[in-house]
């Protein structure tokens, strides 16, 4: 007879009784947490009868998880930094459990995070190295691959110079991996080293850093809970950063906060807003100024804050005043009354925060967009406190880290730039001769010149040699962890794929580099190297809130795949500079030790305050996650008591200083040793300004009467150098050993040695001792005089449907930037002359789906995710669809304004997009121009789901300050297929 579970249950688990005995059960708090309870209402629930606590009997655990080892790592699919808890049995990852102790995700995941275990079962992964031989994928050994690649690289170097090799790294590497990749570029002798930050938040980094010092999220995901008003402008975190919505929504509920979403689409995020503002894509600046117009008109601005901590307000005000409601509505379509309400909420119901993502950054005016956002925050005094700030949601799990460690074309690690001083600093850290590094480059000038942005790699391959300002065109691409289909203008990139002399893709998946290269007609000199996912590696990653988390290796690399670090070591060894490059890094069985790399970073990263995050401290944080409070992110007990979770940078001084990290940047309400700070005095101490009468006055750039708590200097002050310490009489606090190091750094002029160059950490230590921030106490800049538009101005997209606005709001003139010409102006002018807007009347924008990430090859290979989005589509408004006879779900051709580009996708007819706007997700690949390229992948490695890439249709357009591409606004036409 059937034994029913209920019969056994009644015998075994008299639940309430068990709870009373407390035998091995989960406690009340754990149950409530498991039930999904908000922390805020714990007390109210306390009186409820708890009849469901049941026996957690080890013997009753499942066969798969009994005796499992628990390992913790970080989800690799966005920048929230969710802890992944893995159950490992016999080296196999058998289950995922909620990470309750993480003060960031508190057990939660999104579709991707809840499916990461699939990545290491890897049915569709690259399993061994492959080489394209006469158009056929052929299995080879690792040794052969490294040998052949190395020989070819050396041949190209001899013929075309070091800059002819482009090193394209990844935001999915650990911090150690990204740092090492930048170092590999430096030792190879090029600044052509880039990663995904270029195409996601390069404009944020530049725009925000140029405003107040550092280009990063000022606050944190969890701090959003403190906001009373939030604007989410150009971001759809419900799909891109789902776990952040836990804090956004729960915080908004508890505070009854205003949630304002400004976006061309009524996104899944907007569905939970209290106010939705629909704007025309590409008109962020007019809308932001439109809000500011109401603020200054009504006197809602924070006058004291502006006086003390803002430079250039009067200049900015002139621009704000131009944007009256009529003009704003004419340009953006947003009614004045709505913006007035938004302005009032933002300025008067404080604290207010502004959240943005790629909707603001991915534009030719991206840098100006984010600066206008910063201006709104400064205008209302909403920076530097809980619930305020620029909450910039970054993309990949370690894109903040990869940016910090300088996997970038404009700087060495930690934003030191490319000056001789910067190179000498890193030569000291790496303990190599500056002259050795200099000798690796084609010449000193190119060594100090920004590299080519990854967005333009194929232009660097294809343009006439004389237009590429380096020794020769780019001849080889070494791609380690970057998609090709997330770069705009795919039809033109195909020509580049054909023309390259060498293409190496080191990745867990073959990616669209493989399928498109074969489509382009490439037959040889291409290699696919299987690299492990980050769950098969260990190391630190930096979430968007600047917090570092140490991830353990969950399982060993599967198949023949190798750790990123090992691949870099093998290449460096083959190229002959491994001894120099790994001088201070232990290498075990060809695998560099991640902890040693982090220690080397700690030794050189004074500028960004990455010096206090030793591997030991980070590991201790991971091991004691439960000690940290979710809202403050601070440990209330345990060995890390007082630390903020993940030691968000800047974490000043050496690890021994035990700085707790800085959860909120520029927060003057706290002492520096408690995580307080000021705006960074990065742009000098004073500036000459011309007055209308022609006279010249010197205006201070230092804060006026504002300083962080307990600061001994009760006013603004410049960045610390030995000279400044001497003036203050604080140099006596330096130890002899510290002085010795300082003198060694600049024997000729030790007074010039600054807080960021002092390898002893003494200057920082002394500044902290006196309650001061090492980088000084300056004003934030509304006027960033060094940028193309010092005060942001509206500029119509290159391809705009509103051609009548172009004469008033044209894009910037053509110029040479990043070694290449940027002919945006010519393209805009030509488009108008050719009447492109008539042929292609619909605005095309692109964005994220929750199931996929980036170029999507990894997530489209994950069977649990791929099942949920099996079809590439385009969103089109019902009115536009009706005009074209397009039915929901039917196939359509999308044609683009350049290269006769076309893509075959299905139509999703929806009011989510406004009339005249179409939208595509950017994660698809493996189709081109209606053709299925599945056969181009090496056998068994094709992603489950393929589809047209949105970037087949996207067009020319680059931000002058960063080389950011323009995937958010172009023009297209849609016809029934």
């Amino acid at each position, binding site marked *: 007879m059937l034994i029913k579970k209920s019969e056994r249950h009644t015998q075994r688990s008299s639940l309430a009784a068990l709870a009373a005995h407390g035998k091995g059960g989960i406690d009340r708090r754990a149950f409530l947490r498991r039930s999904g309870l908000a922390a805020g209402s714990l007390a109210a629930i306390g009186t409820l009868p708890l009849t469901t606590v049941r026996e957690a009997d080890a013997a009753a655990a499942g066969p798969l998880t009994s005796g499992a080892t628990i390992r913790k790592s970080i989800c690799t699919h966005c920048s929230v930094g969710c802890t992944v808890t893995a159950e490992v049995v016999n080296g196999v990852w058998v289950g995922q459990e909620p990470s309750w102790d993480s003060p960031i995700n508190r057990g939660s995941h999104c579709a991707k995070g809840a499916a990461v275990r699939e990545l290491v079962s890897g049915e569709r992964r690259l399993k061994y190295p492959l080489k394209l031989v006469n158009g056929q994928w052929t299995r080879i050994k690792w040794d052969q691959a490294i040998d052949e690649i190395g020989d070819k690289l050396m041949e190209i170097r001899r013929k075309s110079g070091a800059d002819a090799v482009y090193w394209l790294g990844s935001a999915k590497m650990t911090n150690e991996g990204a740092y090492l990749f930048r170092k590999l570029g430096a030792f190879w002798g090029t600044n052509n080293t880039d990663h995904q930050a270029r195409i996601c938040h390069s404009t944020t980094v530049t725009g925000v850093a140029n405003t107040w010092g550092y280009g990063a999220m000022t606050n944190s995901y969890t701090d959003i809970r403190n906001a009373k008003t939030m604007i989410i402008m150009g971001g759809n975190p419900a799909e891109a950063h789902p776990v952040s919505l836990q804090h956004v929504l729960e915080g908004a509920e508890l505070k009854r906060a205003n949630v304002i979403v400004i976006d061309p689409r009524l996104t899944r995020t907007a569905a939970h807003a209290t106010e939705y503002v629909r704007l025309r894509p590409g008109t962020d600046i007019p809308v932001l100024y439109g809000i500011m117009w109401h603020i200054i008109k009504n006197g809602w601005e924070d006058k004291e804050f502006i006086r003390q901590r803002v430079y250039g307000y009067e200049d900015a005000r002139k621009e704000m005043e131009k944007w009256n409601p009529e003009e704003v509505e004419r340009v953006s379509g*947003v009614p004045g009354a709505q913006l007035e309400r938004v302005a009032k909420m933002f300025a008067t119901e404080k604290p207010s925060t502004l959240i943005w993502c790629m909707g603001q950054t991915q534009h030719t005016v991206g840098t100006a967009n984010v600066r206008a956002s910063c201006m709104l925050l400064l205008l209302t005094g909403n920076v530097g406190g809980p619930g305020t700030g620029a909450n910039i949601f970054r993309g990949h799990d370690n894109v903040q880290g990869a940016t910090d460690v300088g996997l970038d074309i404009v700087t060495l690690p930690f934003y030191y730039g490319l000056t001789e001083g910067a190179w000498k600093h890193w030569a000291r850290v790496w303990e190599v001769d500056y002259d050795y590094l200099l000798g690796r480059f084609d010449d000193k000038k190119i060594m100090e010149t920004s590299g080519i942005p990854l967005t333009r790699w194929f232009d660097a391959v294809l343009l006439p040699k004389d237009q590429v300002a380096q020794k020769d065109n780019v001849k080889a691409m070494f791609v380690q962890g970057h998609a090709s289909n997330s770069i705009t203008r795919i039809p033109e990139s195909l020509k580049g794929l054909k023309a390259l002399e060498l293409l190496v893709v080191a990745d867990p998946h073959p990616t669209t580099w493989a399928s498109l290269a074969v489509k382009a007609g490439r037959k040889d000199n291409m290699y696919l190297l299987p690299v492990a996912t980050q769950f098969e590696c260990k190391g630190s990653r930096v979430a968007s809130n600047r917090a570092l988390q140490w991830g353990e290796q969950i399982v060993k690399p599967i198949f023949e795949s190798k750790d990123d670090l090992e691949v870099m070591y093998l290449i460096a060894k083959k190229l002959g500079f491994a001894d120099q490059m790994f001088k201070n890094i232990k290498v075990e069985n060809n695998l560099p030790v991640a902890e040693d790399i982090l220690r080397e970073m700690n030794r050189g990263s004074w500028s960004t305050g990455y010096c206090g995050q030793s591997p030991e401290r980070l590991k201790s944080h991971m091991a004691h996650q439960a000690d940290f409070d979710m809202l403050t992110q601070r440990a209330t007990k345990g060995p890390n008591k007082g630390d903020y979770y993940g030691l968000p940078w800047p974490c000043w001084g050496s690890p021994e200083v035990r700085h707790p990290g800085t959860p909120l940047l520029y927060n003057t309400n706290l002492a520096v040793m408690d995580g307080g700070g000021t705006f960074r005095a990065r742009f000098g101490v004073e500036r000459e300004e011309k007055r209308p009468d022609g006279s010249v006055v010197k205006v201070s750039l230092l804060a006026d009467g504002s300083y962080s708590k307990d600061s001994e200097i009760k006013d603004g002050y410049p960045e610390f150098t030995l000279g400044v310490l001497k003036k203050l009489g604080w140099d006596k606090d330096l130890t002899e050993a510290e002085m010795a190091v300082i003198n060694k750094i600049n024997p000729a002029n030790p007074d010039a040695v600054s807080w960021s160059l002092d390898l002893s950490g003494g200057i920082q230590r002394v500044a902290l001792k006196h309650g001061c921030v090492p980088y000084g106490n300056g004003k934030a800049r509304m006027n960033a005089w060094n940028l193309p538009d010092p005060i942001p101005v509206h500029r119509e997209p290159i391809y705009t449907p509103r051609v009548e606005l172009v004469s008033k709001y044209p894009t910037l003139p053509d110029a040479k930037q990043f070694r290449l010409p940027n002919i945006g102006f010519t393209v805009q002018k030509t488009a108008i002359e050719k009447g492109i807007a008539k042929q292609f009347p619909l605005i095309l924008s692109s964005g994220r789906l929750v199931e996929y990430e980036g170029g999507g090859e990894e997530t489209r290979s994950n069977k649990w995710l791929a099942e*949920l989005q099996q079809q590439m589509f385009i969103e089109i408004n019902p009115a536009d669809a009706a005009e074209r006879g397009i039915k929901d779900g039917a196939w359509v051709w999308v044609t683009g304004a350049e290269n006769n580009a076309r893509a075959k996708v299905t139509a999703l007819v929806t009011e989510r997009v406004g009339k005249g706007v179409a939208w595509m997700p950017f994660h698809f690949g493996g189709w081109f121009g209606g053709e299925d390229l599945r056969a181009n992948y090496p056998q068994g490695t094709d992603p489950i789901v393929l589809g047209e890439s949105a970037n087949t249709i996207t067009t020319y357009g680059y931000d002058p300050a960063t080389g950011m591409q323009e995937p958010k606004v172009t023009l297209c036409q849609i016809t029934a297929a």
Partner: protein
Amino acid sequence: MTKFIACLRLIAGVLVFVLMTGLAGPTNAQQPNSVNPNASAVKEQQLLDKLNVVKGLGTIPDTKSYVLEHPAGRDWRVFHQVTLKWIGGIAILGMLALLVVFYLWRGTIRIEAGRSGRTIVRFNGFERFVHWLTATTFVVLGITGLNVTFGRSLLLPLMSPEAFSAWSEWAKYAHNYLSFAFTIGVVLMFLMWIGQNFPTKADITWFKMGGGMGKSGGHPPAYKFNGGQKLLYWLIVLGGAAMIISGYMLMFPFYGGLTVDNMQLAEIFHGIVGMLFIALIIAHIYVGTLGMEGAFEAMSQGTVDLNWAKEHHPLWVEEEMAPKGAARTQPAE
């Protein structure tokens, strides 16, 4: 009259206004001054009140998963658990009871003239094959079908759950696979006998005489098929078609955009028609066996006694005996 013109003018004015705003609307799309998505959240009860179903949009290809909530499942359940059992019980038990009563009253209808010793071919081999193909599959389909409705109440208490499930699973397979044979049978039967099953005047007489079933009913006129048989034929053809169509809908669930509602309707239809069908066939079996002497051999051997034929199908015998058909009569053994 002026009033009428004024009225017309007003209507025209309104029309022009509507047209103008209608045309101007999309191009100059004035955005609303306030959109509060949270405040306008959809409510479950409103949706249920409107359509009694909550349907949205999903991302997986399985479109039936887009139905979030479909309380009608509860109604179907009542039908399945209560209504259908009553219908089936009344139809089948009622028919059995009726036949018992009829038998007790009338007994077996004998060949009045006694057996002649001469036979006449009534159904050729093919006809009999088709009949038995349809008949046997029907019996299996009927029993396995009844198992779905009544098995749990009647059979399960008598056997172990495992045994009952094993039997039911085989019953399901049998039900599904034999449906094809049944379909062929019904189709062939339809084609084979349609010529002889169009109603004639004789059928009216047949029905007026109660089919001769009364104790002194006499022998109403009939060709190869009498009025009752023709009725049976059409019921089998139409009922069979109904069973087949609704059955295939259940067998190929959700194909061609079928919804849960369609499926539930198909099941209700299949159930009710099936029960009535079974009752009908029980009657048919009675008449062909116990109810009438000399009838069964028509389908077993294919021949019937000439006297039986003359009594029940006189017009048919006349046709058969006509010169053309004379040769076909054979002497009995």
